[in-house]
Structures are given as structure tokens and as C-alpha cells.
């Protein structure tokens, strides 16, 4: 039924099967929109956040998806600035993923901050001394950049490209893409850093507070490094997953190998930097603020195992797999390592958001755990559903993987 919209020569499942795949995600999105409506109409009393847990599931989600979405800017940087042409095989998919991650994060942020009709206040009256202001400005600008990077992919749709003005504009937009990739890299570099810096400057939270360089705490640099290390892993993982679900070979194995190698080296550097930072924090920064580092891990749900898992299991282990030519040549190891690397950055953002707020800052305060309300969970899942729906539509109707047709022909 929708064959005229599908890229010529690509094999896609029947319309009926596609709709069956989309239905549960649409239902999930519907429930999420209901929850979002409740939060916007009734306010944040619909959530389990309070004055102590002002950052909850949503901020954790924002940080996680923005880190995972770094694959878009980093792949663009590698392709357009460093001229790694092999990555043109995944750049379209990386852009769509980046767009979904950032638009999802901004959507949730609108619900979290509330009063979306007054969102312009943050731009009109910016507090230029706040890391969050920098994050807001950079994310908004970068989403604009991503929209302009996504636009040529949409305009290449089989029916849309027949319209001469669309085709010519897409062609000219493609020619200026290196400029947009450069701007995107600049913006991403700063907002990834500012998101980390946001925690590192929390003097009242010894669990998060860090020393640093000039005005930037060490978390500024660690967030950038972890995001660019995991971005290629997430592109690798999603490409493999889409290939599995659709039953198609989307890219040549060499592309996976290159992404793994890049991710491996960056992850190794990140793990080394993270180890140095952790040692400095536990032995110098935290004691200087009057905190006893052992107390950070004294409460069982968040014992030292979290630190071990984050650095060793989800950091060092995937880095070693990626750097081993023999292991990364095997799909199981490759995909397993990419999954671990992505889990690592998600764990890191969870630790920085939730564990930071769990640890008491005053002697008489207890450790506290927060459980999100159903509205928070439903909003979280709505972002996942939105991403799956838009990505599925893009995969079906747009050319996300230029090598797919050739590989299909054997």
C-alpha cells in the first residue's frame, strides 16, 4: 500500500506487519501523553520528586539520552571534519538517533520544568553564570542543527525528491553540511561538558563535587570524554539491532570494526581518566570538604559494587574487547561490548543524578531512596516509544543506510 514511499530497491515488510509493530509503541506513547498532560495541568505533584530529590528519573533520562545521542555529532565530526568516509554508511542513522535523543530530552525537560508557554523566559532573561543556562542554549541550538541535518534525509524520500525545489535545496544543504557538523561539534562539546560541570560545582554535595581546571570541574571533561567514547558504540548497537529486527544486512562489517576501534581507544582513555579522578576525589577533594569517602558507599543499595560495575565491568571490559582484534571480529563479543559501554554511560549518569541526591549532606539526614511515580515512568517510556516510532518510520521510508541496497543484491 505504501510501496511508492519506500526507497527504490529496498525490501521492507508488509504494511500490515509494519502497523502491527507500531501499534504497541503508539499505545505506549498514548499513555505517556496522558501522563504528560497530567503533569502539565496539575503540576509536579504528579511526580514523586520533592525538595530533596529535585532531580529524578527525567533528568537521569535527559543525561543518558544526550550522552548516547553524542554518536550523531561525533560521527559527523569524524566524517565531515576528519574525513573518515567509511562512516557515511551510518551517518544518516546517527543523525536520526541524535535528533530523537535531543528532541526527546527537550520534550521531557519541558514537562519537568513546567509552564512550557514560558520557556522563552530562559532565553530572554538568561542567568549567564549558570551551567544550566549554557546547557539550555547549547541543546536548543544543537537541536536546530540536528533538524537541518535531518531535513536533507527527509527530502530524499522517494516522493519528496521528485519535487525539484526540494531536491535542489537538499543538494545545496548537503554541500554545507561540514559547517553544520563543525557547529554541532562545538555545541555538543560544551553542553556535554556543562552537564557534567553542573554536578562538579555542587559544593554542598561532596559526592558530586570535584576539583578541576580553571572554572571547569573534572566532571566537565569526563562527561565529554564518556559521551564521545560511547556515541560510536550506541551507533554500532542500534545499527546491529535494526539489522536484526528487520532481517537485513545494513552495513559492511568493516564499519562495525571502525566504530568499535574508535570507541575502544576513547573508552580506554576515559577509564584511565575516571580512575585518576576517582582516586583524587576519594583521597583529596572529598576529605577536604569534611566528608568521609567511605560514607558515600555505606548504604547498601549503592555500595562500592556500583563503582566497580561502572568503571571495570562497563568501562574497562568493553574497552579491552574493542581493542582486541580477535574479539571484536566476533559479532557476539562486539555487540556485547557495545551494550556494556552504553550501560556504562547510563550508569554514570544514574550515579551522578540519583546517587548524588541519595547521600545525605547533613549529619542528621538519613540516606534516601526515591521511586518514580507512574506518571514519571510513563513519560520516560513515551520518549522511548516516540523514538522507536520516528526511527521506524525513517527506516521504512528514508535511506538511512546507503550500503543496504548493495548488500541486499549480494
Amino acid at each position, binding site marked *: 500500500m505504501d510501496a511508492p514511499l519506500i526507497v*527504490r530497491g529496498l525490501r521492507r515488510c508488509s504494511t500490515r506487519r509494519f502497523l502491527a509493530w507500531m501499534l504497541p509503541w503508539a499505545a505506549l506513547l498514548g499513555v505517556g501523553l496522558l501522563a504528560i498532560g497530567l503533569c502539565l495541568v496539575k503540576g509536579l505533584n504528579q511526580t514523586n520528586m520533592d525538595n530533596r530529590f529535585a532531580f529524578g528519573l527525567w533528568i537521569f533520562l535527559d543525561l543518558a539520552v544526550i550522552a548516547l545521542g553524542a554518536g550523531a555529532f561525533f560521527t559527523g565530526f569524524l566524517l565531515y571534519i576528519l574525513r573518515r568516509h567509511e562512516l557515511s554508511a551510518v551517518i544518516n542513522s546517527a543523525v536520526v538517533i541524535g535528533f530523537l535523543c535531543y528532541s526527546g530530552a527537550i520534550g521531557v525537560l519541558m514537562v519537568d520544568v513546567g509552564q512550557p508557554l514560558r520557556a522563552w523566559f530562559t532565553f530572554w532573561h*538568561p542567568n549567564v553564570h549558570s551551567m544550566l543556562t549554557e546547557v539550555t*542554549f547549547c541543546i536548543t541550538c544543537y537541536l536546530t542543527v540536528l533538524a537541518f541535518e535531518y531535513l536533507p534525509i527527509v527530502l530524499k524520500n522517494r516522493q519528496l525528491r521528485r519535487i*525539484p525545489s526540494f531536491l535542489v535545496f*537538499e543538494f545545496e544543504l548537503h554541500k554545507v553540511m561540514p559547517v553544520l557538523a563543525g557547529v554541532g561539534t562545538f555545541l555538543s562539546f560544551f553542553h556535554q561538558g556543562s552537564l557534567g560541570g553542573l554536578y562538579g560545582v555542587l559544593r554542598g554535595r561532596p559526592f558530586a563535587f570535584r576539583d578541576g581546571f580553571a572554572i571547569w570541574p573534572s566532571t566537565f571533561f569526563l562527561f565529554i570524554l564518556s559521551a564521545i567514547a560511547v556515541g560510536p558504540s550506541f551507533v554500532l548497537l542500534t545499527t546491529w539491532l535494526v539489522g536484526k529486527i528487520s532481517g537485513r544486512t545494513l552495513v559492511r562489517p568493516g564499519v562495525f570494526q571502525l566504530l568499535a576501534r574508535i570507541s575502544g581507544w576513547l573508552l580506554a582513555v576515559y577509564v584511565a581518566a575516571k580512575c585518576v579522578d576517582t582516586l583524587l576525589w576519594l583521597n583529596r577533594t572529598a576529605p577536604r570538604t569534611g566528608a568521609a569517602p567511605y560514607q558515600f558507599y555505606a548504604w547498601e543499595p549503592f555500595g562500592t559494587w556500583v563503582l566497580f560495575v561502572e568503571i571495570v565491568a562497563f568501562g574497562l571490559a568493553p574497552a579491552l574487547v574493542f581493542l582486541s582484534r580477535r574479539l571484536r571480529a566476533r559479532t557476539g563479543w562486539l555487540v556485547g561490548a557495545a551494550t556494556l559501554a552504553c550501560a556504562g554511560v547510563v550508569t554514570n549518569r544514574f550515579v551522578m543524578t540519583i546517587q548524588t541526591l541519595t547521600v545525605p549532606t547533613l549529619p542528621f539526614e538519613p540516606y534516601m531512596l526515591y521511586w518514580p511515580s507512574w506518571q514519571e515512568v510513563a513519560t520516560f517510556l513515551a520518549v522511548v516509544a516516540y523514538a522507536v516510532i520516528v526511527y521506524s518510520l525513517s527506516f521504512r521510508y528514508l535511506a538511512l543506510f546507503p550500503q543496504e541496497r*548493495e548488500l541486499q543484491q549480494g
Partner: protein
Amino acid sequence: MFPGIDGFAWDTGHIVFLGAFYTVLLAIAATVSLAAMRSRRDFRLHHEQAIRWQAEFHDLPASCRRCRHELSGEVADRTCGLGFDCRRCAEHARLLAARSGGLPKAAVSDGVAAGFRVLADRRYHRGHAWVRREPDGSAVVGLDDLGTRLLGEPDAVELPPVGSRVEVNGTGWTLTRNGVRARILAPIDGTVTAHGGPDCGWALRVKPDGDGADDRHLLAGEEARRWTAREAERLQIALAADGVGAALADGGVPLDDIARAITPSELDAACGLVFLEP
């Protein structure tokens, strides 16, 4: 945000932060505006056909963009980067100069390649259109045997109006069969002077630009036969059942109306490969 707005101050923080922000916004706006202005200029200069071909050629699988000199064995592996416009290709000129005989000679007799006719009196374009020079200086163009058999009897034909211009690799004419629209690339630059039809054996009569002698991008003779044979292979592979892998016929002749024997989606995919339209 701006001087005069509540909260703004002329201090380092505001100047540096807002300065960087406005610079980024300016860079984004300037970049997109530049793309929009160039698009407008392209339309004014009627470049849309050339751009369409450039964009489509870029999107074609590498197997569709093989250099003609692979067929003759002069190069082992070479992908064309110039949209099959050998007139602009320095490598083509170099390889021809290296040949003792220069340009490939047209075949003296008609031939058959993989069951498809390759005629001696015409030169073939990589998009399966052909050109035949007429004694009066005009040229007639038509669809080659492989393209004709693939589409069979078309349900609809759209020809450019008499008096309009066609250009190499721009849209020559379009054919529709079983709901699948195939765009045939024009093999020469010129002005359409008459329409043909199935009875004439050609689609358009064209008055070529200049003397129309520069046909270095077209294939003839033995080269055209080799190319047709490879195109037939590509077509067979494209039409192979899913999961079977590459399989070629071990005999027989091609059908007169392949479109009738395959599904519209198979025809669509085959048209994309044969007529170079992704």
C-alpha cells in the same frame, strides 16, 4: 538577552556568553541561508536537471557506477565519479590515448549480447537510451532492447514537448508500466524537434547542440556488447528470488515483456538499477 532587557548587564559574563551564542546562531542562519540562496541561483540558471543527476548518481549503488574501462579490462576496479560523463574524464582520455586504435570503432554488423540486440548504427548511453545520427544532421533517440523488453508495452508515455531542450543525463522521457514509473535519461544535448513512437522505433528526434559530434560518453560496437551483457547479468541478479543468491540463466532468450512476468515491486527495483534512478 539584549541591552535594556531586565537582567542584562555589560559585564564579561554576558558579553562572552551571549557573544558566543549569537555567533553560533549567526553561523547556523548564514549556512542555511547560503544553501537557500544557492538553490535559488540553481533554479535561475536551470541547473535542476544536472543537480538531479548528480544527486541520484551519488545515491546509486557502486555496482551501478562501474567505469566503462572495467569492461575492456583496462582497469581492474574503478568507480565513476563524474556521472558517466566521459567527456570530462581525464582518465578516459588517458586510457584512450594509451590504446593503439584510439576511440572504439562502431561494430560493422549488428550483434547480440546475452540475448539482447546491440545494433551497429547507434551509440548507447549507460541509462539504456540510444542515439542514431540521421543524414539530415538530426539525431533520433530511443530505448535499447534490454530496456524495451524490461518494460514491455508501456501503459503511459510522457515525452517532452517539441521545442523543449533535453540535456545529457537529464530526463529524456518517462514510461509507466504496472504503476511503475521509469525515467529514461537523455543521451545527448539538444532541442526536441519531433516525437516518434513504437512504429518509428524511436522516441524523440533531436537537433543536437553544435554539430553534436562529441559523443565520447556513449558506447558502441564491442564495448556496447560487453556492457549489455553485464547489464543483463545485473538484471538477472536483481530479479533473483530473495535468499537464492546470485544466479544466472544457463540458456534461453529474454522475454519480450519481462514486466508481465514479475511483480510491480520487482519491476520497480529492476527499473531503478537499469535506468539508474535510485
